[in-house]
């Protein structure tokens, strides 16, 4: 029996502690405006979670998939129906089960990955995107026969306590994201992640080393869809507070793809960096438009410019740093460390020096 949990190093624990102090103590005490929670922090956590899902299948396993939003929709509507029809499950139970339902879709639409890769697989995953949205849209049962098209999400109640204020919802998202992120890091470092990366780097070689392609790929798709499903449920219940299939269209899939690639393929922190960038950059552009040009530039032009910049960045990163912003951050840390050690402020001995 292989150990299920990796041992964490001291550095990991420090990182975790810093993140927890930042997100649990510092952010709630300094940020008091609702806007930050409802429009930035909550969607950031939800989309970062979905991006981790995309990372697992694309960054770690190397399968070009483009259907994250479809799985998110599956998770969101599963959540709605579970709370509506099986109230005994409770919020957390429903969240887990809706993730599992999304995972079932992930397995189904991940099967073509056994045969094809690259753009072929992308087309197969597009099928999942369009099919899931269509299914939810056309069968009234999923929407509880609501004809208005937009359904209000139920309130979040955990153990009899309502979580309806922005701050409370932020904590719900934070808790779920933290647990799942830790799990993802665990998987990525353990034998599961090593199998994924072996398949990514050379699937035929991995297979000849005894890694089962069927198992590894299907597992990656299932786990990825689970993450997307949970993220979709949170996205609908904490951020949108409503459910409509249109919110999970192909544009959202592309957005998550961009978050994943710009953030840095094959990294977990890249998911958070990428999601933050894609979310905050339009806010920044709008602020520039409003404050520097005083609204002289039309909002549609600003969103067009935003698109040009995202696309341009994608090309630039592909050319100069295919590993994305996470790698840039890593490089920055490295060069800072080097500078510190060479200027003699703090002598950091590398393992090579020690052995000499």
């Amino acid at each position, binding site marked *: 029996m292989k150990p299920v949990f990796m041992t964490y190093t001291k550095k990991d624990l420090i990182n975790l502690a810093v993140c927890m102090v930042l997100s649990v103590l510092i952010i709630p005490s300094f940020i008091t405006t609702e806007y930050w929670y409802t429009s930035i922090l909550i969607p950031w956590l939800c989309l970062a979670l979905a991006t981790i899902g995309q990372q697992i299948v694309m960054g770690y396993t190397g399968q070009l998939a483009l259907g994250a939003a479809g799985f998110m929709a599956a998770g969101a509507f599963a959540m709605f129906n579970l709370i509506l029809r099986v109230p005994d499950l409770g919020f957390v139970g429903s969240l887990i089960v809706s993730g599992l339902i999304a995972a079932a879709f992930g397995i189904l639409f991940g099967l073509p990955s056994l045969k094809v890769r690259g753009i072929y697989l992308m*087309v197969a995953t597009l099928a999942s995107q369009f099919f899931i949205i269509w299914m939810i849209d056309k069968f009234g049962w999923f929407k509880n026969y609501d004809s208005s098209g937009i359904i209000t999400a139920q309130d979040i109640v955990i153990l009899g306590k309502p979580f309806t204020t922005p701050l409370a919802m932020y904590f719900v998202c934070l808790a779920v994201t933290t647990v799942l992120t830790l799990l993802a890091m665990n998987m990525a470092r353990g034998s599961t992640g090593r199998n994924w990366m072996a398949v990514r780097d050379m699937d035929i070689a991995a297979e000849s080393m005894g890694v089962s392609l069927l198992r590894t790929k299907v597992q990656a798709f299932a786990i990825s869809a689970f993450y997307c499903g949970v993220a979709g449920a949170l996205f609908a219940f904490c951020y949108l507070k409503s459910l409509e299939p249109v919110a999970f269209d192909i544009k959202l899939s592309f957005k998550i793809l961009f978050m994943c690639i710009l953030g840095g393929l094959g990294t977990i922190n890249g998911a958070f960096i990428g999601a933050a960038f894609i979310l905050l950059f339009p806010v920044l552009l709008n602020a520039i438009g409003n404050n520097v040009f005083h609204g002289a530039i039309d909002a*549609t032009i600003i969103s067009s410019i935003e698109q040009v910049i995202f696309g*341009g960045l*994608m*090309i630039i990163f*592909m050319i100069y740093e295919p590993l994305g912003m996470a790698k840039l951050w890593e490089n920055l840390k490295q060069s800072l460390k080097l500078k510190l050690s060479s200027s003699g402020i703090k002598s950091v001995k590398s393992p090579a020096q020690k052995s000499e």
Partner: protein
Amino acid sequence: MVDELLFFMEVLVGGLLAGTMYSLVALGFVLIFKASATFNFSQGAMVFFSVLAFCGFMQDFNIPFVLAFILAALLMVVVGLCTERLVLRPLMNASEDTVLMATIGLGYVLEGLAQAAWGVEVRRLDLGIGDFPVPWIADNLKLFISALDITAGLVAAIMIIGLFLLFKYTKIGLGLRAVADDAGAASSIGIPLKHIMLLVWSAAGVVALVAGCMWGARAGVQFALVDLALKALPVLIIGGFSSIPGAIIGGLIIGAVEKVLEVYIGPFFGGAIEGWAPYVLAIFFLLYRPEGLFGEKIIRRV
């Protein structure tokens, strides 16, 4: 009974002709893939960009139809030039997945630029060909077939023949085939790789413009064209990525199957199954014949 058969024929022919519209988009894709083994995800964006530019020239600057078309075509050549210089050349030795992601970025750039320059509202494009049944066919064959569909079919046929002749009988075509076969070997015997790439991207741009005109005349020139163009992907999977006839046959199959399914099976599921039916069809093809009907067999070496 006869009426039912006629109705089926009408659905089928309408689907086939609508399929040639997908073929036109797929054609640009195949051109680039043949010459450089690059999956150009931005082909849909090129369709949108070129036809919006064409409309912009005509409607905002009052440039006459033919001149505007030539200007838009020239603009696509410039786009091709920039793409070759700024995107493809730096990524010469990158893996195909990396290039694919870069073309997704390129698509975003083109969509954004088009909307920034010419606005986001839906524009009408009048080619002088109505999207209504041709009276002559309606009277004699009792089939209601749109004039626009027939034009699209004719245009597609002309383009195929033109491209076929270009590939087969000209020196440029020979160079193209050589580059497609082995870019390294071709450049070592003195075939100018850069010019070939520029030519291919420009040709794909012009094909995109023509496809955009057809789509624009039917559905209006709008952002939704990009999503429609995504349907060229299943077309390519069915036809094979490297085959021009494949793009045509694939388009016809997708067009016919999605219309027939929509009309006969769609009502049982609340309709609108044409949104995903082509992709599911493509999955079945991928499972049984991943190289498509006319594509070269995919061989991967360890």
